[in-house]
């Protein structure tokens, strides 16, 4: 039976849905802000959308992007991130990120935080992000 499943999986691989790769966040003190970064890998044949992030780690969480005009930099809420079918989207420093506002605790290097990512198709995906000093 196991052999049959392995063979079937070789020829008809199981759809991996949405994968979250290398989630990490920046250090900061309680009451201040931080950012969460990760890569979304969409291995499905349909577009999916990240539209909400929840966590006990911060008072408020929003999906943001950093933008620049010359040497002036700003930040704005974008509401959602669309990930095309069979593609990936990287949330990274200086670009899209999850903004963690009014942290409920200090985030020091090596600390962890749990998050629930809400996707339109994939539903809820739970992740744990580690604080990295970089």
């Amino acid at each position, binding site marked *: 039976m196991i052999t049959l499943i392995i063979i079937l999986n070789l020829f008809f691989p199981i759809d991996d849905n949405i994968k979250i790769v290398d989630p990490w966040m920046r250090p900061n003190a309680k009451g201040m802000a931080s950012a969460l970064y990760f890569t979304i890998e969409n291995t499905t044949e349909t577009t999916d959308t990240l539209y909400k992030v929840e966590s006990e780690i911060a008072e*408020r969480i929003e999906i943001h992007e950093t933008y620049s005009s010359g040497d002036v930099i700003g930040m704005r809420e974008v509401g959602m991130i669309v990930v095309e079918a069979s593609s990936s989207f990287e949330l990274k420093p200086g670009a899209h990120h999850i903004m963690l506002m*009014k942290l409920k605790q200090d985030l020091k290097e090596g600390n962890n935080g749990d998050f629930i990512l809400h996707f339109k198709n994939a539903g809820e995906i739970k992740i744990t992000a580690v604080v990295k000093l970089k």
Partner: protein
Amino acid sequence: MKKRIEILLTAGIFLFTLSCSQDLPLDKDLTKKSYKLINQDSMVVDFPEIILGNISVMGFIYTHCPDICPMTTHNMYLTEMSLKKAGIEDVKFVALSFDPERDKPHVLKKFAEIRDIDFKNWTLVTGEQSVIYDLLRRFDVRAVATDSVFYDDGEVSYSMMHTDRISLIDKEGRLRKNYMGSRINIEELIQDIKYLGEY
């Protein structure tokens, strides 16, 4: 023949000196006016007095910034680490907050401590808003509050749109070069410091 070689050598040295000074395009005297600032220990400090006598790397930040300012601060930190590895330990690092409303001294101190910043070489400064804005103008740095958020407890938070900046200042208090703080080429900054300090 000897005279011709001397002329060529002189011209070569002149061109070399010129090319080096072109690498550091600015020469703005910051000592003409002094500013009373407050450091992370709530001590009143004078700018430019705190930087005179040392080459200084100055970053412009606000501590509630989640993305860009931590990159700027971390780039300064990485620069310090690289310099230390090269045996250069007398460069000063100054982080000036352009958000004095929220960045009180204890906030700056916590921001630094959580990043393992060594206060031996670092000073984080804030101050009266009018003084800070005046000093920002000396550096051509712009900062303005943008989107506001109201929390359930009534607290208001805001983001800031700002110049992405790290500046290099020489021992005499002259601004010599500006870099994009979050995207700086650290090796370029280190080379400029070595050139300035003749290390």
